[in-house]
């Protein structure tokens, strides 16, 4: 290559380097339609003029090796070399905007999901800034944000209107001064010009009156707006106070919750254990009381049995009185006149003898308690054996006397039973009286 060719080559190289240094990749505001290339083949486009444009591409045969995103002019805005297998998420800046892409590659294909995210405009950024600022203040909701924005816009419009009116007035004043200056030298010689100047002045007056009216209207509007602003600020303050109150209440509740939460693990367990202990003690006490009551009931029942036995014994020990009974029964009995009459006058009913016979049977079927003493030297085993033989139940033992209860069979009378018991070798004496044991 000669010198000329060398210089051509150097110039070409410099041009390429310059193109690489300043690709104007970042300067583009609106990328328009973006072309997506997979393995250097265009597989689709991403229309950035639409809202949230997305592109999904699935390759079922060939693996995804390279992905390129280019503008319609061919400018490379994003390039990605995919791995053989795996998933990756990438974000390409496109000027102020961005493209988010997720790539899932396999050996036999892959999937690409691409989404264009447009940068927010200056209005949105301004609103966001105002919203973030207002968001810092407590107690402002979306409606109040809208109010604030509307107020801000209104204020700007009003300020512009006032400026316009002031500028208009200044311009009119300048014009009128110029007219007066121009007219004044001519107005002296000519009557017509005087009329014209007076008309001009009248017009100026009218304009000034209109201007004043407009200013008054603007001032009134401003006052109204100020009042509204004050009202809104009061509302905002009230809402803020309410929110503060709510926050304090919430904090109180949270503290209480925290307090209760702090106690529960340790103290609550102790309290529960104490309660359980108390309950167990009360249960024991109740059990003891029940046992005592049971013992008392048994004692009462035994006492009752003893009393009945005694009564029976007493009745049995009244044979002479029983023999005198018919005598007394033959006489007039004021308590049983009807029975006496029926017995005397009418023939006896077939049920009458049965009723009479039932009474002693009922008495004999009841338990019979007596006291028994044994010969000296009698062993406890012999005593127990005897009691078992008579199917007795041993009760109290007092001064060698054993209280024994038996259930006598119906045909056997207590006397016969006692007589037969007395015949036992080990028995010393038998009696039915508990209160005064024999020999005492």
């Amino acid at each position, binding site marked *: 290559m000669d010198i000329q060719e060398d210089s*051509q080559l150097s110039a070409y190289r410099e041009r390429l380097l310059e193109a690489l240094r300043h690709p104007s990749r970042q300067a583009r505001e609106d990328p328009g339609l973006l072309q997506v290339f997979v393995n250097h083949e265009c597989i689709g486009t991403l229309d950035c003029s639409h809202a949230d444009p997305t592109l999904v591409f699935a390759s079922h045969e060939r693996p995804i090796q390279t992905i390129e995103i280019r503008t319609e002019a061919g400018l490379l805005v994003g390039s990605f070399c995919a791995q053989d297998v795996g998933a990756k998420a990438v974000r390409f800046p496109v000027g102020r905007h961005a493209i988010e892409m997720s790539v899932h590659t396999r050996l036999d294909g892959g999937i690409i999901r691409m989404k264009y995210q447009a940068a927010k405009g200056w209005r949105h950024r301004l609103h966001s800034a105002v919203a973030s600022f207002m968001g810092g203040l407590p107690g402002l909701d979306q409606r109040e944000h809208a109010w604030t924005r509307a107020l801000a816009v209104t204020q700007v419009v009003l300020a512009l209107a006032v400026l316009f009116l002031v500028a208009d007035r200044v311009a009119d004043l300048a014009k009128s001064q110029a007219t007066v200056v121009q007219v004044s030298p001519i107005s002296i010689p000519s009557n017509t010009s005087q009329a014209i100047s007076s008309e001009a002045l009248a017009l100026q007056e009218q304009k000034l009156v209109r201007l004043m009216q407009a200013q008054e209207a603007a001032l009134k509007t401003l006052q109204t707006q100020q009042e509204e602003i004050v009202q809104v600020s009061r509302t905002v303050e009230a809402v803020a106070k309410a929110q503060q109150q709510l926050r304090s209440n919430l904090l109180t509740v949270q503290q209480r919750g925290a307090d209760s939460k702090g106690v529960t693990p340790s103290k609550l367990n102790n309290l529960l254990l104490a309660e359980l202990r108390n309950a167990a003690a009360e249960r024991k006490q109740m059990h003891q009381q029940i046992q005592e009551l049971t013992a008392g009931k048994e004692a009462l029942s035994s006492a009752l049995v003893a009393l009945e036995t005694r009564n029976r014994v007493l009745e049995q020990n009244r044979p002479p009185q029983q023999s005198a009974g018919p005598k007394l029964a033959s006489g007039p009995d004021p308590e049983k006149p009807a029975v006496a009459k029926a017995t005397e006058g009418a023939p006896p009913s077939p049920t009458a003898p049965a009723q009479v016979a039932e009474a002693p049977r009922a008495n004999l079927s009841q338990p019979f308690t007596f006291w028994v003493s044994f010969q000296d030297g009698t062993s406890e085993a012999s005593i127990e054996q005897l009691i078992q033989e008579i199917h007795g139940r041993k009760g109290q033992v007092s001064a060698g006397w054993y209280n024994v209860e038996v259930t006598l069979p119906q045909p056997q009378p207590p006397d016969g039973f006692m007589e037969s018991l007395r015949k036992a070798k080990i028995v010393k004496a038998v009696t039915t009286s508990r209160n005064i044991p024999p020999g005492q």
Partner: protein
Amino acid sequence: MGERQLLSTRLSTLVSTVEEFDRLAAEVLPELLDRATGHARRFLRETGQWADDISHEKLALRWGYELLERFLVSGRTEVPCRPFFLLDSIIAKYFSQPEPLCYHKDLLSPLGRFLEGMTSRAVVSRDALMALFYHLYGFSQGQVVRILGLGTVESQRVYKNFERWRQTGWQRAVSESGVSEMELRQIEEDKHRQPERLKAEADRLIRLVQTHYRRSEPEHFPCLTHQKWADLFEQDYDFDYRVWHLAMCRDCLVDVYELRQDELIDIQSPQIDLRLRPLQKGGIVSLFWTQQGGGNGHPGGQSAQRLSRTSA
């Protein structure tokens, strides 16, 4: 030598952040371009496609540039990385494809480089793709819309494509393809002196280039039969297919023109009518430039007439 070793060491070290990557790449951009160019040169040598002349050097530089551009963009998503290794891997991956470069000895001429550069750009740029209809056949945007049978929205897009191409696209494509202003004027002179010879040469080279780059959209964009083209236009679908394939296939373009001849009476049949400069906005301006013989004008009365008639 010491500096190069230091640089090599620096580029082989790990880059942790995007900012660090951008800073380092900006500092050593010439070295990175030389490295990428060296890879392209070696590939051409190894495949028997190299000769020690300026055309081959330009070809290697251009491919080095394109690969470096991809590295600069994709490297930002690859951090942490070692820049030299990443560049080498991107280049290796690219050259491992079947027939990665459109290489033919005849394409190393200024006309060949121009046609190859335009078509290569059309693969990645829709602006360039639309402009091919003008640069190869002389069709304006309105004629392109009618030949392709595009709808309203697509038509607007075509006009935008032409506008952008006129403003920046053409200049960039020509600059990157390594065709100098002097070479462009030489081609224009040849066209003026021996139009038929240049036309035949362009026709031959266009077929070479289109055959290569049409393969970049393999099974999705095959040549259709006459009947299928008729169905496609009758049922009015697949605009992208029409745009891509007809810009890259002259035979199909002629087929479609014949198919829609009744609707395209005032448009000439697609014949090679090479235009080196982009279509200007107004025919009068273009005519003025043509008569002045400078700037982006178009020599030849026939071209100026077509331009003034269709560019409105």
